[in-house]
């Protein structure tokens, strides 16, 4: 029995010390994934805690054929998608034309203002623009992009985690990157990225 298997057994037996260890080891990864997914600190903290609670409750269902962190990632993304689905459904009740999955690249509320290039060089402003660009993605596109780009999850792992085909992951990623590129196109000139041409 490997060390991880022993650890999983401890978790299965309801050992709270083992659970605290699990949290300490993975809390940063899960919190930052949650923040990349939700785009804000408050929701991220809430989501990350819910992920660990779910993990504690459903450790019996963990078959051990994936790594613990992959399993936690899967829970995080699926919980995020569930929440967005519910939120989107609630919003639809009030505003029928609001659809997260639609291609809303020209949504006026999410239009990025290029602003002053000097200011744009400031990290916080870039971060704000990046967040606005990410908000433009559908929850699934965002989830796939964030997992691949910021959390270095292989396409195969993402596909397994979300229970979708690898081809679907690739097309979601392709669409996501194209949308991001459209939203952040003004930076290419400001940051001299066009010189590559």
């Amino acid at each position, binding site marked *: 029995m490997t060390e991880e298997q022993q650890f999983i057994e401890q978790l299965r037996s309801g050992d709270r010390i083992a659970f605290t260890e699990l949290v300490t080891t993975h809390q940063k990864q899960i919190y930052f994934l949650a923040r990349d997914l939700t785009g804000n600190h408050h929701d991220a903290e809430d989501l990350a805690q819910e992920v660990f609670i779910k993990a504690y409750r459903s450790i019996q269902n963990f078959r051990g054929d994936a790594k613990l962190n992959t399993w936690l990632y899967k829970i995080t993304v699926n919980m995020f998608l569930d929440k967005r689905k519910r939120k989107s459904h609630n919003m639809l009740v009030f505003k029928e034309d609001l659809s997260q999955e639609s291609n809303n690249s020209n949504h006026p509320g999410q239009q990025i203002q290029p602003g002053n290039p000097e200011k744009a060089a400031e990290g916080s402003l870039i971060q704000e623009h990046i967040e606005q660009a990410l908000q433009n993605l559908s929850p699934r596109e965002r989830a796939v992009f964030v997992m691949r780009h910021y959390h270095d999850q292989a396409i195969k792992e993402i596909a397994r985690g979300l229970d979708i085909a690898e081809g679907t992951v690739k097309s979601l990623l392709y669409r996501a990157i*194209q949308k991001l590129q459209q939203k952040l196109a003004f930076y290419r000139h400001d940051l001299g990225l066009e010189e590559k041409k």
Partner: protein
Amino acid sequence: MSECSKCRKYFVDALYDELTPEQKDYFTNHLETCASCRAEFEKMQSALEIMDLGEQDSLPGEFWTNFQQGLESRLDREEKRKKPNVVQFFSPLKMVRAIPRWTQYLAAAILLVAIGIFIGRYFSPGSYSPEPVAQIDNQSSSLIKQAAVDDRAYRYLERSKILLLGIVNLDPEAEEASAPDYSREKQVARGLIQEAAVLKDDLTDANRRKLYQLVSDLEVILLQIANLETKNDLPAVEMIRSGVDRRGILLKINLEEMERDNRGASSPIDSKKSEKKTKI
């Protein structure tokens, strides 16, 4: 499939360096010859470079401590909630919720009709059914008996109260000068003592335990009154007064009367009062 669309299928893998060597050769060769695909790929590459410019702010160690504490308390709450859930699995409320809404409405309607029939049958003046009437007769005769006992008890308390008030309100200095005669009080007290013995036999059920105790306490005081010297027995009167105070006899009598008033029964005092009012 055109060369360009085949090449674009590799974009994502190429961006994340996940192409096989063969795919990579094909992809590189195509980009060298196709300006449109190259431009498109470079745009996507630069988008990813921009996405990497964002700041990942670090969080203080305190945040993680709070995070864990918050998580622990949420887990504790979860576990507390989880325990009753086992019971809830069999809970009637959950079972009712599982029943379809229309069945619930139907059941509610049937219940209402049943209540209506019950009320109509047992409480409407025209209804007749021999068995319940016999039961009601038994019940009402026992109620009448109880009411008679209560009535006697309250009359007894009222008479005792008047006697006690007379003794308690004596002015010692005035009494000393006038050398009062207690023969009337002694006579009343003896009568009340005799009545107490009979009354206590009727106050044996659990609901009247308080009343029984009060009559017993009164008996002691009444005995002291009955044993007073006929004239000018001020030390004994003082003893009776302190006995009444110590045992809170007058207060207890007042409370019993208030309780009876609250129950809606008319005490002898009330009936007297109402009689007086009508006369006025």
